[in-house]
């Protein structure tokens, strides 16, 4: 694009970082990482997500606006692997480099977009499944173990992947999934209400898994209210002050953590490299880690929990 | 005229919940006659006409049109059978233009579109029939004064191809000057073979236009016959079940101190200059043409509209004040538009009566609905309101009875100054007598000051002590009633100059 339009008020090249939403702790960490990356590479970051959490339409509009404005680069966490592909293509046509992070986009990294920086969602779901199987494995074998899965929202790709990975593993291990068709909705309040309504299934269950921050937080509140804390094994996803506290006092047995800071940092770094015309890596796995009470103080893990 | 009747109704019954509105009505209307339908408020006139027009369906009884059974399922069916009706409560769409209202439901078309040129022509012709040919057919009906709206409604009924024309109190908002051409039109239509059913509480009109009459009482036919064979008193006796001898009672009294004083008061548009004094124990009548600004005068005094110039004083209170303050100062007002501004149609009569003084009727900020109903009953009975008790929703009452509820409010709240805008609109003759008596008693016995606006001059002459004429927004000096007569008043109303010995 036009270099004068691409430069921000500071004179540095402006890059847009577009998350899926803005109100989860996860995205806050990505933003912090992106700002670190910008600092180290001399870019100016514009952080802007859809007003309505998880609205594909608004996200497409945002990308279009940044493209028409002619920013120097775009880092995007696509809400959908198909719907966002055309606008990314049009950005590339205009010579704007695009880094995809967090979730996949149709196409080949390096060809249809410059770089893909993400956690493997399916694998992290499998990780949660393996851990829950391990936790439940110690119990007597004469009785089939029951687990509950409370899903996030219909149509959300990354969590659906996690849910699928989780289900594969626990089903293969012979566990019975007593609930797998309930969606918690977008906010913690809805998640808590939904979990409370599943009281009978939760009482009968041995383990429970939640695929993201808001659902895990809502489930934690519900388990506290139902006085089921500690009576079943609870594996969640992502981190927030509440969840870390739950991990500390033992009400949560494990959390799968991604590395949002690194994700943000690396995405912006890759953009900077691409703008400078340097070669970039096309796929970067930022990895996921299983955090338990036992390992939460290891420096590598503690950093993720900040 | 021995021809078979065009419309023949026998034994018609209609029940609304516990109320038996029609209890066996018989009615014969012949082609080519104007048939007067009379009865007290709540006798069932409007209900009967609504059944004929397909608004309500009857519970029992038989209706024959041209000898064939006639039971329209909806208004469209009735209209297709050649029946046109003007309802007591205006039925106009305020956002549409005059022309569109006139031909709603039977628009001249060009394909799927309205043929606007033709619509305008037809509209102008229809308006000319009621003497309003100069009215722009493209103005929105919502911007018209009430009188013009009523004329639009009349023009709509007259403009169709009708065999049976029904008019339910078509003249309640009209000036005398507009009534005469209407009656003339009705006679022409009758001469062309159209059957006309005419409802009005103004007997002069009936005697001027009708050929035959039918009297309803309590939802049943009492008598019917040729208008030439009856007279005012006999008709009243048939309606009310007794004779009303003294319509305008008048007790002697000497007026007291000035309680309402206006000096060069002007509103936003109207009135332009109003100066008058009202004394305790006196009835001051206000006469004027439609649109002269009488209503605006009352509204400005009562604080419903802003006063932009001049001085207003009520008793010891100087200056303009909002309605809430006026009630506290002992002033009460009756609006001319009872449907929009007079009553809460969905609420009970009791609530409507006590609304302005709820705080006084309450104990510790709380009211007891039962007690409100009990306390309202004497006032409702005083004006002979026909209702199923103080808890019945006002919207379910007949038009005249609604008006009486609005008046009962003013009697019950014990105001010292009353502003009455068309107090007897749509009220039957028996109830009129009650209202006049009540005004007389309040003013001349209890020392209440009453300001009455009325378009019906005999009424003003009958009850007022002094009469002031309003012309184009200016109030002419008031004169004692003894010095007024209808001709002089009419002259003053149109010319704005007082004539005669009192000038």
């Amino acid at each position, binding site marked *: 694009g036009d270099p004068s*339009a691409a430069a921000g008020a500071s004179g540095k090249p402006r890059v847009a970082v577009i998350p899926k939403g*803005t109100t989860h702790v996860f995205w806050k960490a990505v933003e912090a990482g992106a700002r670190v990356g910008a600092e180290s590479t001399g870019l100016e970051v*514009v952080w*802007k*997500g859809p*007003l*309505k959490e*998880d*609205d*594909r*339409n608004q996200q*497409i*509009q*945002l990308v*279009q*606006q940044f493209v*028409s*404005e*002619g920013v120097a680069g775009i880092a995007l966490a696509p809400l*959908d692997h*198909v*719907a966002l*592909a*055309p606008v990314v293509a*049009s950005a590339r046509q205009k010579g704007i480099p695009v880094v995809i992070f967090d979730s996949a986009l149709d196409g080949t990294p390096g060809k249809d977009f410059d770089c893909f920086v993400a956690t493997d969602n399916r694998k992290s779901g499998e990780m949660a499944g393996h851990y829950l199987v391990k936790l439940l494995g110690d119990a007597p074998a004469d009785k089939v173990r029951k687990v509950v899965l409370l899903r996030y*929202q*219909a*149509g959300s790709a990354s969590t*659906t992947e996690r849910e699928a990975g989780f289900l594969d593993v626990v089903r293969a291990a012979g566990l019975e999934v007593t609930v797998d068709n309930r*969606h918690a909705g977008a906010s913690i309040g809805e998640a808590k209400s939904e979990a409370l309504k599943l009281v009978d299934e939760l009482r009968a269950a041995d383990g429970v898994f939640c695929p993201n921050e808001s659902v895990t937080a809502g489930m934690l509140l519900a388990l506290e209210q139902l006085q089921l804390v500690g009576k079943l094994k609870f594996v969640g996803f992502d981190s927030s002050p509440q969840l870390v506290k739950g991990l500390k006092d033992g009400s949560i047995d494990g959390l799968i953590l991604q590395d949002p800071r690194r994700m943000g940092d690396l995405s912006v770094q890759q953009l900077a490299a691409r703008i400078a015309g340097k070669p970039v890596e096309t796929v970067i796995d930022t990895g996921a880690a299983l955090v338990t009470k036992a390992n939460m103080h290891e420096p590598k893990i503690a950093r993720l929990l900040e | 005229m021995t021809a078979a009747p065009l419309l023949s109704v026998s034994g018609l019954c209609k029940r609304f919940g516990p109320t038996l509105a029609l209890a066996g009505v018989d009615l014969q209307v012949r082609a080519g006659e104007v048939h007067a339908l009379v009865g007290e408020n709540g006798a069932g006139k409007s209900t009967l006409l609504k059944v004929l*027009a397909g*608004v309500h369906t009857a519970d029992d009884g038989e209706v024959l049109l041209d000898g064939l059974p006639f039971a329209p399922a*909806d*208004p*469209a069916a009735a*209209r*297709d059978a050649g029946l046109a*009706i003007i*309802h007591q409560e205006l*039925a*106009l*769409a*305020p*956002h*549409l233009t005059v022309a*569109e*209202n006139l031909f*709603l*439901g*039977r*628009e001249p*078309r060009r394909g*799927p*579109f*309205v043929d*606007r040129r033709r619509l305008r022509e037809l509209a102008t012709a229809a308006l000319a029939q009621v003497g309003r040919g100069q009215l722009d057919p493209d103005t929105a009906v919502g911007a018209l004064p009430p009188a013009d709206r009523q004329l639009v409604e009349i023009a*709509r009924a007259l403009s169709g191809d009708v065999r049976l024309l029904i008019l339910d109190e078509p003249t309640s908002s009209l000036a005398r000057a507009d009534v005469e051409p209407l009656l003339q039109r009705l006679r022409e239509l009758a001469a062309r073979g159209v059957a006309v059913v005419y409802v009005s509480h103004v007997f002069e009109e009936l005697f001027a236009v009708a050929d035959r009459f039918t009297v309803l009482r309590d939802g049943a036919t009492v008598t019917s016959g040729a208008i030439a064979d009856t007279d005012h008193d006999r008709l009243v006796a048939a309606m009310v079940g007794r004779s009303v001898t003294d319509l305008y009672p008048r007790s002697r009294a000497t007026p007291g101190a000035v309680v309402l004083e206006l000096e060069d008061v002007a509103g936003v548009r109207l009135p332009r200059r109003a100066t008058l004094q009202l004394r305790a124990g006196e009835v001051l009548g206000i006469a004027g043409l439609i649109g002269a600004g009488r209503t605006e005068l009352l509204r400005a005094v009562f604080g419903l509209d802003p006063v932009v110039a001049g001085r207003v004083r009520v008793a010891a209170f100087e200056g303009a004040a909002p309605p809430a303050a006026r009630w506290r100062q002992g002033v009460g007002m009756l609006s001319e538009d009872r449907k929009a501004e007079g009553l809460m149609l969905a609420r009970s009569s009791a609530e409507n009566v006590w609304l302005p003084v709820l705080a006084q009727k309450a104990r510790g900020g709380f009211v007891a609905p039962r007690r409100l109903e009990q306390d309202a009953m004497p006032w409702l009975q005083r004006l002979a309101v026909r209702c199923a008790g103080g808890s019945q929703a006002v919207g379910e009452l007949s038009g005249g009875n609604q008006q009486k509820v609005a008046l009962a409010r003013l009697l019950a709240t014990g105001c010292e100054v009353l502003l009455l805008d068309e107090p007897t609109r749509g009220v039957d003759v028996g109830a009129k007598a009650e209202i006049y008596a009540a005004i007389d008693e309040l003013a001349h016995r209890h020392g209440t000051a009453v300001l009455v606006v009325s378009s019906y001059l005999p009424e003003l002459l009958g009850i007022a002590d002094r009469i002031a004429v309003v012309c184009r927004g200016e109030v002419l000096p008031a004169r004692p009633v003894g010095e007024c007569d209808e001709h002089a008043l009419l002259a003053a109303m149109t010319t704005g100059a007082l004539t005669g010995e009192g000038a």
Partner: protein
Amino acid sequence: MNPARLLRAMGPSLGLFVTWLLFAVLAGGKFTSWSNTELMLLQTAVVGTAAVGATWIIVSGGIDLSVGSNIALCTMAGAGVLQAGGGLWLALVATIATGTLVGWLIGALVVGALPRVLVTLGCGGGVFLVAHGLGAWAWPLGVLAGAVAWLSSRRLSWKLPLSPFIVTLGLWGTLRGLAKGLGDNQPIYFERNDTLAGLMVTGGVLPAGVWILLAVAAIAAVLLRRSVFGRRVVAIGSSRQTARLCGVDVPRTEMGVYLLGCTCAGIAAVLQLSYLSMGDSTTAQGYELKTIAAAVIGGASLAGGEGSIGGTLLGALIMTVVDNGCTKLGLDNWVQEVVTGGIIVGAVALDRLRLARR
């Protein structure tokens, strides 16, 4: 047109001009550029088309709270056809027809034909289920059976009118649920179709989607102001009682309004389908309030009888301008939300003020 009316009609344009100017001054060239203007028009296409339908419904004295869910359902239906390889034209028909069908449902419930609706849905659904084995034929057969049931059940017409607020509040959830169910809780993806995708890309004089919006709006405006049907709709909104007394077939006219209004939602769904290149059951959330806001900012009254298509378009544009301008200024999301709310109130206040002063 008399001056007062002209002024009233100009209100929303004034509002648009003031907001536009505000952002033009604050954000400068990157806001006023042609490419950004084109983008704003493009981004108004979906809401604008739906709002044209909403205007009809509001003018008739009704309301449609289900329009967002309806659009989502329509995109799912269209995407389903494309996924099954039904071809573009069939998909377009399916998308729009779904909207029309929803309009029929709303209309029937509003005018009081609930029993007929139940019978129709029962017959249509039953045949559909029985014919399920026939594959692609099940749909048309079901619809046919439903239509026959509807036409032959006139006598069932209990008069049980329901308030449109309640009907569409119920359908708000029902249609969204159906949309999710149609895709088994997942979006529906299909082979990329260039013609479809081409509706909503900038580059030419104006995107095809904007032309479609303008065409729909022009037809709707002429119909509303000039046709017999349109004037009767205004009459119903202005005074239902009067319309009935004057022999207007109120239920039939209302039925027509909802058919038309929801067909507009179906057309909006086509544009949305093109924009998203997928069927999304979670899309268009909150459009119910956006379309109503556009109509009201454009001078419509929720009491019915008042409103114009032109005004609604301006109202929709005002909202896009605010949205776009805030992004250009780099405002935080929360600031943008605060500002947008303030501007909605401000635009209407401006309008009222101007009217009060004349």
